[in-house]
C-alpha cells in the first residue's frame, strides 16, 4: 500500500489554489464537505457498480458509512443542511480527496485516493445559462492550470427523453426505454425484443391470468391478482405491493395486445443512439433523423444548439469536440447535459474533468422539491500529469 497519498503534494496544492481562485472569482463559495459520509445515500442513488468501488464500513455504533467516492453527493447534502427548504440558489466550490477501490491495481493513473476540485450550482432557474457557465468555468479552470490541446465530449439524456417522448409509443415502453438508456448493451436487445413482439411464457398460468385483467380497471385487476395469489397459496410478503405486481401484469397484458414496436421506430431509435459527431453536425443529423421519423424535435434541438453557440461565443473552442447521443456517464443521477474534458490517453487516463446536470438528485436525498443542479469536477492528479507531459 502506498505510504503517501500524493507524490507531488506541493505541485498539487499550488494547482488547487489556482483552480479554486478561478472558481471563487466566478462567485463560488469554497466549502469542505465531510470525507466520511452515510453509505445509504450513495448506494441508493449511485448503485451497486459504484459500491463495488466504494470503501464502505460499519462503525462502532453499527452505522454503515463510506469514504466519499465523489464530491457531488456530499456537496448536495451540505447545501440541504444549510438550506433545508432548497429555496435559495447557491454556488459552491471545493478541493479535496475522494476514494475509490481500483480493481486492477492502485497506480499513478488510477490512485485509490485522489483529489477532486470542482463546482456545484444549485437552484439556478435559467438552466441554459447554468449549463453554459459550468462548462465554460471548467474549461477556464483547466486552461488556467496550463492545459492545452484538450477537447470536450458532450451528451444529453434530456435530448433522448425528448426524442422518446416525441415518438408515438405506449407509456410503458417510454418508461422502459428511459430506464434502459443507462444499460447501453441491453437497450439494443430490448429494441429487437419489442420489435419481434414475442413474449416468454405466452401460454403460462401468469399470462392466462394477465389476459383476464382490465387495463382500465386497476382496482378490479388487483382483486383478481389477490384472488389468484390466495388460490395458489402465495402470501403477499415483503415491500413490493399488490398494486405494483398488478401494474406489471397490466403492462404484460398491454404488450400481449399491442402491435409489436414498428421496425422503423426501432431502427430510428438505434440511429439516434448511434449519433456521434461534432456538435453542429450532430444537431443536423438528429434533425434529419427526426424528420425521417416524422416527429417534431425542433424546440429542444434549437435550445440544444443554442448552448453550443453560447459556449463558442464565450471563447470555448468546440472544433475538436464531440457530441454523442449515447454518452451518458455512469452516474444515473444525471438528468440533462453531461460533459467531459479529455486529452490523449488510454482508457480513462485522458479524462481530466467531467460534470453534468442532475436535477433529480436533491429531491431523492431529502429536498422538498426538485432542485435544478449542475456541477463539474476536475481529477487534479490527471490534470497535473497531463500538464507536465506537455511541458
Amino acid at each position: 500500500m502506498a505510504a503517501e497519498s500524493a507524490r507531488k503534494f506541493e505541485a498539487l496544492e499550488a494547482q488547487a489554489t489556482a483552480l479554486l481562485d478561478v472558481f471563487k472569482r466566478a462567485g463560488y463559495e469554497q466549502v469542505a464537505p465531510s470525507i466520511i459520509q452515510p453509505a445509504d445515500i450513495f448506494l441508493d442513488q449511485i448503485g451497486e457498480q459504484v459500491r463495488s468501488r466504494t470503501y464502505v464500513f460499519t462503525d462502532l455504533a453499527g452505522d454503515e458509512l463510506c469514504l466519499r467516492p465523489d464530491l457531488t453527493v456530499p456537496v448536495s447534502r451540505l447545501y440541504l443542511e444549510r438550506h433545508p427548504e432548497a429555496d435559495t440558489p447557491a454556488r459552491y466550490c471545493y478541493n479535496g480527496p475522494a476514494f475509490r477501490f481500483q480493481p486492477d491495481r492502485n497506480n499513478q493513473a488510477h490512485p485509490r485516493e485522489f483529489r477532486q476540485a470542482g463546482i456545484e450550482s444549485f437552484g439556478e432557474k435559467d438552466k441554459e445559462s447554468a449549463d453554459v457557465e459550468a462548462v465554460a468555468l471548467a474549461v477556464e479552470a483547466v486552461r488556467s492550470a496550463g492545459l492545452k490541446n484538450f477537447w470536450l465530449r458532450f451528451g444529453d439524456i434530456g435530448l433522448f427523453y425528448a426524442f422518446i417522448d416525441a415518438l408515438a409509443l405506449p407509456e410503458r415502453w417510454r418508461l422502459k426505454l428511459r430506464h434502459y438508456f443507462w444499460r447501453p448493451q441491453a437497450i439494443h436487445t430490448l429494441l429487437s425484443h419489442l420489435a419481434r413482439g414475442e413474449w416468454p411464457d405466452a401460454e403460462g398460468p401468469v399470462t392466462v391470468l394477465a389476459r383476464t385483467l382490465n387495463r382500465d380497471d386497476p382496482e378490479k385487476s388487483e382483486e383478481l391478482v389477490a384472488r389468484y395469489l390466495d388460490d395458489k397459496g402465495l402470501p403477499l410478503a415483503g415491500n413490493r405491493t399488490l398494486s405494483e405486481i398488478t401494474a406489471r401484469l397490466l403492462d404484460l397484458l398491454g404488450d400481449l395486445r399491442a402491435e409489436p414496436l414498428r421496425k422503423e421506430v426501432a431502427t430510428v431509435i438505434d440511429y439516434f443512439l448511434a449519433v456521434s459527431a461534432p456538435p453542429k453536425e450532430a444537431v443536423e443529423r438528429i434533425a434529419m433523423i427526426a424528420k425521417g421519423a416524422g416527429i417534431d424535435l425542433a424546440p429542444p434541438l434549437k435550445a440544444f444548439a443554442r448552448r453550443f453557440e453560447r459556449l463558442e461565443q464565450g471563447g470555448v473552442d468546440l472544433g475538436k469536440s464531440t457530441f454523442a447521443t449515447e454518452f451518458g456517464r455512469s452516474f444515473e443521477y444525471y438528468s440533462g447535459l453531461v460533459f467531459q474534458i479529455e486529452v490523449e490517453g488510454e482508457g480513462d487516463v485522458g479524462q481530466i474533468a467531467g460534470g453534468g446536470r442532475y436535477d433529480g438528485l436533491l429531491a431523492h436525498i431529502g429536498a422538498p422539491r426538485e432542485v435544478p443542479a449542475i456541477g463539474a469536477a476536475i481529477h487534479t492528479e490527471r490534470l497535473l500529469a497531463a500538464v507536465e507531459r506537455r511541458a
Partner: protein
Amino acid sequence: MASPKLSIGVPSKGRLKDQAAAIFEKAGIPLRNKGHERGYRATLDGLDGVEVVLTSAAEIVHELKLGRVHLGITGEDLIRETLADVDGSVEFLAPLGLGRANVVVAVPDCWIDVTRMADLEDAAAQFARAHGRRLRVATKYMNLTRRFFAASGVAGYRIVESVGATEAIPAAGTAELIVDITTTGTTLRANHLKVLEDGLILKSQAHLFASLAAPWDASAKKLRDTIAGRLNTLRGLP
C-alpha cells in the same frame, strides 16, 4: 514427528468437518487429533510429514491465498466469493462430492410477474419509481452477486450484507430478494421464496485446493500427489 513438510487446512466444524473426516477415513489416511479432542492441529495416520490445520472453511480460503497452508478443503462458493483472482491463487485438485449446494437468486413467490433476471431489472425500475430507492438484495455473497447481476444486465439494485438466516429477510422487509446457498430448496420454499429460472449463479461443492502461494518443495509435491490421488480415487463413492 519431524517438522511437517506439508500442511493442509480441514474444516473444523459443521457437517463439512464430519464429512471430511469420513473421507480421510475411507482414503486410508484417517485424521488423528493431536492432544485433546478440541485441538486445532491433527495428523493423517500413515502419512508422515503432514500437519492438518483445523479451522473454519472461510479461514481456509485466506490461508490458501496467503500460502500458509499447502492444501485445503473448502467450498467452491467461498473460493469464488473471496478470491479476486481464483486461477492465480489456487488450483482445483479434486472435487470431493461434499457440501453440494447451489448459489441462487430467489424472490418472494408472490412476485408472479418476475420469473427471469430480465424481469428483475424491470421490477427494479418500477420499484425505484414507486419507493424512491433501489431493490435490496440480501446476501453474504457480495462479489458473486455483483458479477452475476452485471453479466445478466441487472443494475437497479443494492446489496445489504447478511450474516445469517438470509432466507427470512424478504418477509421481514429489510431486503426485497436474496442470493443464498441452497441444497434442496426446502428452506426457500418454506420461506415463500422461488428461484428465478435463470438465477443459478454457481453449482458448488467442496474441493481439495492447492495454494499457488505456498512453498512447494519436492517432498511437499510428493505428499500433495499422494493425498490428491487417494481422495480422487474415492470420487463418486457415497
